[in-house]
């Protein structure tokens, strides 16, 4: 995996779409918001990007190895 992710905890509604799509990459924290797991390093970049795109509120940002924002990049 080359991508890095950041979850905006303020806007995450805990829909679980990222957890459902990439259970090795995301879990829930004690506040019911999405949280990247240590095992995210074992998950394919494409899967991480797909999980981010499924987020209904775009709470997950994905960056490439150079730090460029790939998603949502709006």
């Amino acid at each position, binding site marked *: 995996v080359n991508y890095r992710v950041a979850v905006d905890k303020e806007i995450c509604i805990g*829909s679980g779409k990222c957890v459902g799509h990439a259970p090795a990459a995301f879990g829930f924290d004690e506040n019911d918001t999405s949280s990247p797991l240590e095992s995210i390093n074992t998950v394919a970049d494409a899967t991480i990007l*797909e999980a981010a795109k499924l987020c209904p*509120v775009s709470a997950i940002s994905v960056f490439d190895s150079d730090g460029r924002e790939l998603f949502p990049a709006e």
Partner: protein
Amino acid sequence: MYASSTAAMVRLTTYADAREALRHRELREATHDEALFLLDNTVLVLHGDAHTRRRRVENRAFRRDILGHFERDQLADIFQETVGPFIEQSEGNLVEIAHRLVMNLSATVAGVDRPLRTPAETDRLYEFLKHLSEGATIIDSTRDKDEVRTEVLDALDAFKREFYSASEARRRALIADFHAGTIGEEQLPRDVLTTLLRYQTELGVPDDLLPREVGLYLVGAHTAANQITHLVHELLTWMQQTGDKTRVAAKDLRFVQRCMLESVRLNPPAPSLLRAAPDAEVVLRTGRSIPANALVDVDLASANRDPSVFGNDASEFNPRREVSPEVYPWGLSFGAGTHVCIGQEMAAGQPMDEDVAPEVHLYGAVPRLVYMLFEHGLTPHPERPPVAAGHTRRREWGEYPVAFAR
């Protein structure tokens, strides 16, 4: 300050504008403003932080492990209990069958007990479902709205007496046992009502809100039930048009799920969603301006048929349609943004992923139930054609007679 009922209306018909408006944090949910007599302070109409806090807690009842348990372990029993009598009679009205099916499922998810599990009990709950659904979608009702409101509030009172109060009392007792250490957490129901009761103080949810919040999940059953009838109709039409006489299409669950996503794109549960603008102009990325205090009509029916996104045949049912990875195959039928449909995965499953093994993939309750209906030899009724619903502007069937092979 947000838009009033006399505000200017802006209609968004393209996929890009509609999607952005639904996700825009400055645009307040306003679809149910006319239904506040029933929905006030429920998660459906809350905005901002209060909505986010409530939603995070209620989402617990829709996590993947719970949905998997419903799909794989409970759905077949609910199907047999609900559809069995119709299969015995070799016929039935699919609209009624679908509502009972999804209602019984939704009651389990919501936390409404059905202690008797009899057809008469199902009928009674179904009556409440119809009233509560009509109240929540009163904006599209073609009936006298004062009459509808009176009926809905009477039905809500009866729902509390006949179903809700005992369901709440049982859960409060279980939660007390859990806090006393006499039962473990795994013995608590994992439904919406139990979750709300456990976090009621933290969320600031008053007692009188609870039955309306829980009733909301029965209302959700109405939209999922309509999708069953739409999907059966689209599949029957597809098989007829493609000459699929052995009905191969309905024997492939993964394909049935694809059909459901295409069907729900063409038949969004709500033809449009409303958003209210703040007291400052909002400009969308396409340059479309939404004036201060305007009402925004997010036209899902049009956005879901946007040819620039879904192709020139966007208005046709094509389960083999390919769309860009940036686009949802189901269009915007489940909404987007913070008010995205909480029951989406329960109804429609998870997006297709070839890397996920079939035994753990979530296909969704609607595709699975439709698959089971076809397994029991569902065909159109030989004598009675389907009839569209007359009480609403929504695209719904009033009666859809079907036959079953015995």
